C-alpha cells in the first residue's frame, strides 16, 4: 500500500455545548495514502467535516481535540506553533470549502486575492505571482484576462468554484482537501468541476481527499473510500472493494438507498430508523438499532476497525456473514 501522507491516530474531538460535551469524532484512526484520491463519505453530522477541521486546526471555538494525533508526512500537526501553522496551511494542504461560493472576499478583485496568497507565503515579486495565478486559471479552463480583474459577484458560481481550485494550487501543495466542493452547483457545472479535479489529480499527481455525503459524486474519480457513521469510521477500502465487496451493513444500506439514473430500482430501499444523536449514542455498535443483522453482542461490544485483507478494513462484528449480494 502507498505511503500515507496523513495518519490519524485515535482521534477524539469534542464540542462543548450547553448539555455537556458532544463527542463528534470518536476514536478515529485513518490513513490517507499519498498520491491517491480518497473519499470520506458520511451523512450530515457524522463528523466528517470535523476531521478536516482537526487536520487544518480550524475547529470552531467550542471544539477541541481531546486525544489522539494527526501526522502529516510523519510530523505531528498538533504540535505546530501558530506561525508554523499558518505557513503550513495552503503550502502543504490546500482546501476547497463546502460553501466555496462565498469564500472569496467580495470587495477585492480575484487577481489580488490570488496574488496575496502567494505573497504571504513566498518571497516572489508581484509580477511573478500574477503570472502564476494566470497560468493556473488557464489550467482550470478559465480566461485569465477575463477573471483577474473581476470582483467575485461578477462571475458565475461554476467559475467561482474553478477560481477557488486554481487558488488552491497556487503554492503547489502536496495535498488538496475538498469539502463538499459541488454542493449547490448545477448538474453540468458539477460534472465539469469534478472532471477538472480528476484531471488535476492525474496530471499533477496531487493527493486528494474529498469529503462528501453523496456517494454518486465520488464513484467516477475516487480510488479509495472511507465510510463514516455517527462519529466513527466503519469501513475503509479501495473503491471497488467498498462498492462491490462491502462487509459492513451500513455501507451496503447506504449504497442501496441511493437511486440512480440507470439500473434496477426495485432493490433500492432506505435504511430504516434515524441516525443517532451524538449526545447519547447507542451502546456497542452505533449502527445496531438500524441494522438487520444485529445480534445481542452488537449491543455490548464496540466493533474495531480491522483489516480483512486486500487493504480493506471494516468495523463489524459479523462482517464475515455480510456481503454485497
Amino acid at each position, binding site marked *: 500500500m502507498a505511503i500515507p501522507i496523513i495518519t490519524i491516530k485515535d482521534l477524539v474531538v469534542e464540542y462543548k455545548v450547553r448539555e455537556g460535551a458532544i463527542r463528534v469524532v470518536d476514536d478515529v484512526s485513518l490513513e490517507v495514502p499519498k498520491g491517491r484520491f480518497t473519499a470520506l463519505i458520511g451523512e450530515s453530522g457524522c463528523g466528517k467535516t470535523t476531521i478536516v477541521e482537526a487536520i487544518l486546526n480550524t475547529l470552531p471555538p467550542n471544539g477541541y481535540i481531546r486525544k489522539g494525533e494527526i501526522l502529516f508526512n510523519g510530523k505531528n500537526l498538533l504540535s505546530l506553533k501558530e506561525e508554523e501553522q499558518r505557513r503550513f*496551511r495552503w503550502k502543504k494542504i490546500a*482546501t476547497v470549502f463546502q460553501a466555496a461560493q462565498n*469564500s472569496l472576499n*467580495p*470587495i477585492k478583485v480575484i487577481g489580488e486575492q490570488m496574488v*496575496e496568497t502567494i505573497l504571504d507565503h513566498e518571497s516572489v515579486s508581484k509580477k511573478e505571482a500574477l503570472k502564476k495565478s494566470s497560468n493556473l486559471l488557464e489550467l482550470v479552463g478559465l480566461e485569465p484576462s477575463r477573471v483577474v480583474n473581476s470582483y467575485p459577484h461578477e462571475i458565475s458560481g461554476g467559475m467561482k468554484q474553478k477560481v477557488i481550485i486554481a487558488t488552491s494550487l497556487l503554492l503547489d501543495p502536496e495535498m488538496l482537501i475538498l469539502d463538499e466542493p459541488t454542493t449547490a452547483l448545477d448538474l453540468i457545472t458539477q460534472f465539469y468541476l469534478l472532471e477538472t479535479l480528476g484531471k488535476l489529480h492525474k496530471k499533477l499527481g496531487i493527493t486528494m481527499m474529498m469529503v462528501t455525503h453523496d456517494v454518486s459524486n465520488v464513484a467516477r474519480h475516487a480510488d479509495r473510500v472511507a465510510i463514516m457513521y455517527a462519529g466513527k469510521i466503519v469501513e475503509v477500502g479501495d473503491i471497488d472493494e467498498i462498492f462491490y465487496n462491502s462487509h459492513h451493513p451500513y455501507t451496503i444500506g447506504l449504497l442501496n438507498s441511493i437511486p440512480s439514473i440507470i439500473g434496477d430500482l426495485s432493490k433500492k430501499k432506505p435504511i430504516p430508523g434515524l441516525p443517532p444523536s451524538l449526545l447519547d449514542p447507542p451502546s456497542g455498535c452505533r449502527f445496531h438499532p438500524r441494522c438487520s443483522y444485529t445480534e445481542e453482542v452488537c449491543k455490548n461490544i464496540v466493533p474495531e476497525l480491522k483489516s480483512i485483507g486486500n487493504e480493506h478494513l471494516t468495523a463489524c462484528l459479523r462482517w464475515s456473514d455480510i456481503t454485497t449480494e
Partner: protein
Amino acid sequence: MMTSITKRLLVSFVTIFLALSITFFLTRKMPGDIFYTMALDKMRTEGIPFDVAYERVMAIYGMASGEPLYKQYFAYLGNTIRGRLGTSIYYHISVNKIIAKAIPWTVFVCSISIFLGFIIGSALGTVIAWKRKTILDPLASAYASITDATPSYIIATILLVIFAVNLKWFPIKGAYSVDVTPGFNLPFIWNALYHATLPILAYTIPGIGGWILTMKASAISVLGEDYVSAAKARGLKERRIAISYVGRNAILAPFTSLAIVFGSMLGGATLIESVFAYPGMGFFFGKAIGLRDYPLMQGLFLLTIGGVILATLLADFLYAAIDPRVRKGG
C-alpha cells in the same frame, strides 16, 4: 442610471415639501403669540390703543393680521423657494443671517465629534471582535452600555459641572472669547477649539460607545463569513486578514450610516448646545421655540430637514462608491 437619480431627487423634494408644510402649520398653531406681548409694550410706550399697536407690530413683520393662514402659507412657500427665510421676530435680523452665523459652529463641533467618535469607536470595535478574549472587551462593553444609558445632555451637564464650574479648565459658555477677532487666525482658532472642547466631548463620549457596539457587531458577523475562514485556511498573514478582510468589509455598513448620523445630529443638537450656551443651530432652535419666533423656527426646520435628506442621499451614493457589489451590480 439617470432615471433613478432623478426619481430619488423628486421624492426628496416632495418629502421636504410635506415636512415643511407640516412644520409650518404646527408652528402657526402655537399659542403664546409673541406679537401680543410686543403690542402690549408698544401700546404702553407709544400711548396708542392696543389694536393699533398690534396692527403696527404685525405690519413691521410683514404679517398682516387679517391674512388667512393659507395665504401666509403660500407666501411662506414662495419666499422659501426664493431663499428668503424672513426676519426673526426676536432678534430683528434676517433668519438667513442668523443661520449663516450658527451653522459653522454646529458643523464645526459635530464633524469633529463624529470623526473622533467614529475613528476611535470603530477601531476599538474591530479590535474587540478580532481578539475575543481580552480585558478590553468587557471594559469597552461596560463603557458602551453606561454611555448609552446616559442621555447626552446629562453627559454635557456633568462635564460642565466638573470641568467648567469646579475645575475651571474650560469656559462655561459661548463659542469664543470677546478678546479675539473672528477670522482665520491662530489665536481665534485656538480659542474656538478651547470653547468647543466640552461640547465635542459631550458628543464624542457616547459616540465612541455607540460605534464600538455597531462595529463590533458588524465585525463579528463578518468574522462568521466564509471568506474569512477561507483566508485563514489560505494561511494569509493575520494583519492582512484583520485589515483587508474583516475590517474593510465590516466598516461598509457603519460607514454609510455616518452620513445619516451627521444629518440627524443637526436636529438633535438643541440640548447640548443649550447646556453650553453654544451659539449653534440647536441653541437657536431652543430659543426660537421658547420665544415663539416662527420665522426662525421655520428656517431652522428647513435646514435640518434638508440636512437629513441630503445626508441620506449622500449615504446611498457613498455606499455605491465603496462597495463594488452595488457599484457594478444591477
